[in-house]
């Protein structure tokens, strides 16, 4: 399913985003890589946020991305999710989908889910409704008017609820959840969209130790079924879950490998301790 086909769901064309009808998961991962970033550069009035960044994510892998402040981690996510357009370079989703051509909504539809640093959930809606709204289904107006949940869908919501440890709070307004719970709910909402790729921006920021613990578990369970990209400052957390770690610095990849590899990498030490 290519960008062109995604567009035809779009009743108005132009700037309007995808009409929101279901996409059969059609990402071509024949080369077992699901996300290609090549020579991406982005600069805001002079300041180079990304500098020739190149990065591949394998299908189903769990990748941690670390780096000092201003290394360009968030900007990278913005580029992948279409929030920021790269000045140069290419972003491909699978073999065929050029993300630079899609709008945010279209990208979300193509199967890339993103959790923001600051958790954004629908505060007025119950946890259940939050998940229901996020659930992968036909999302065009006329269907939303008559939409009813069938038992299968209810089961899926229940499933996710327990996965994110909110089964007990299903009917509470999301606004009343604790910070950590909101983070989870947001992850849960991403899962309801059955994304191929999950971008988690500082998932444990502001979580209690216990919540952090559980989040780590969650990330591990998600990997495999989805490709998970975690951007995090908390090194203990990263060390706990990381299989492959990428270190960004000044807008490009400084080192890549297992946790120990990067820990012993001279350049990384230089960046983190040196000067």
């Amino acid at each position, binding site marked *: 399913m290519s960008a062109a086909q995604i567009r035809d769901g779009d009743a108005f064309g132009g700037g309007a985003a995808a009409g929101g009808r279901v996409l059969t998961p059609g990402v071509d991962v024949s080369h077992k890589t699901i996300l290609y970033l090549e020579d991406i550069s982005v600069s805001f*009035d002079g300041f180079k946020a990304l500098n020739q960044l190149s990065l591949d994510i394998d299908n189903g892998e769990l990748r941690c991305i670390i780096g000092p402040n*201003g290394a360009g981690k968030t900007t990278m996510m913005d580029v992948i999710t279409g929030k920021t357009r790269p000045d140069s370079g290419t972003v491909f989703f699978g073999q065929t989908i050029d993300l630079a051509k899609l709008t945010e909504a279209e990208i979300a539809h193509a199967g890339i889910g993103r959790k923001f640093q600051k958790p954004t959930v629908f505060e007025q809606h119950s946890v259940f409704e939050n998940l229901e709204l996020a659930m992968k289904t036909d999302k065009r107006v006329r269907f939303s008017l008559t939409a009813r949940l069938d038992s299968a869908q209810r089961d899926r919501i229940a499933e996710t609820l327990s996965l994110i440890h909110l089964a007990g709070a299903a009917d509470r307004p999301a606004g009343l959840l604790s910070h950590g719970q909101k983070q989870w709910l947001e992850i849960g909402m991403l899962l309801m969209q059955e994304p191929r790729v999950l971008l988690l921006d*500082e998932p444990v920021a502001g*979580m209690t130790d216990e*919540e952090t613990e559980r989040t780590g578990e969650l990330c591990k369970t998600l990997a495999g079924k989805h490709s998970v990209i975690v951007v995090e400052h908390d090194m203990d957390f990263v060390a706990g879950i990381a299989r492959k770690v990428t270190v960004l610095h000044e807008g490009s990849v400084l080192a890549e490998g297992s*946790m120990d590899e990067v*820990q012993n990498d001279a350049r990384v030490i230089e960046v*983190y301790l040196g*000067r």
Partner: protein
Amino acid sequence: MLSIQNLNQYYGGSHTLRDVNFDIPQGACTTLLGRNGVGKTTLLKCLMGLVPAKSGALMFEGRDITRLTPYQRAGLGLAYVPQGREIFPRLTVEENLRMGLATRPRGASIPSQIFDMFPVLRDMLGRRGGDLSGGQQQQLAIGRALAMQPKLLILDEPTEGIQPSIIKDIERVIRTLAQQGEMAILLVEQYYDFARSLADHYVVMSRGEVIKSGPGEEMERENVKACLAL
């Protein structure tokens, strides 16, 4: 100069500052170290009053400033060089520096030693702050703070994303300021070498708590490095 007493702060569900206690003496450079996300910046924001402290007290020259607004604290002589510089992008360099005179009497002029410390600022007086390079912006931010002629200078990661040459200048400036002895300096860093070379005293934070502190010479012996490495 400033003493922090049992400071506590929460963000969301998490306890970002846990009973933080330490003093910042005059005429010395106190460096606060720790990895990203351990609460260093939150602590500084509490000191400036940008985020309210949940409990605990801040005593500045023996006076309780815990409930004062940021500009009242600035008036008492706290100057803040925030992470990411936060210079005023659409003001010229000169105007940015003049903002540092807000607490001083009318007609006060920009102290000339600022230009001696950062000559580049003199050449750029007319440029818009937003058009400066990262390094220049950092120097401007420090200059702005110095224009306030503060008693306590607070710097949050002044070396972040800056080319080494400028880092050397900044290091020199901070050292001279500390040695002049009129002001106390609180320097937040995550880069060991830089911190080590300036620290008269050091404080290490992890997960919102102070886990180590002492005179700068002891940093090796206490193996502070280990607390910062991955």
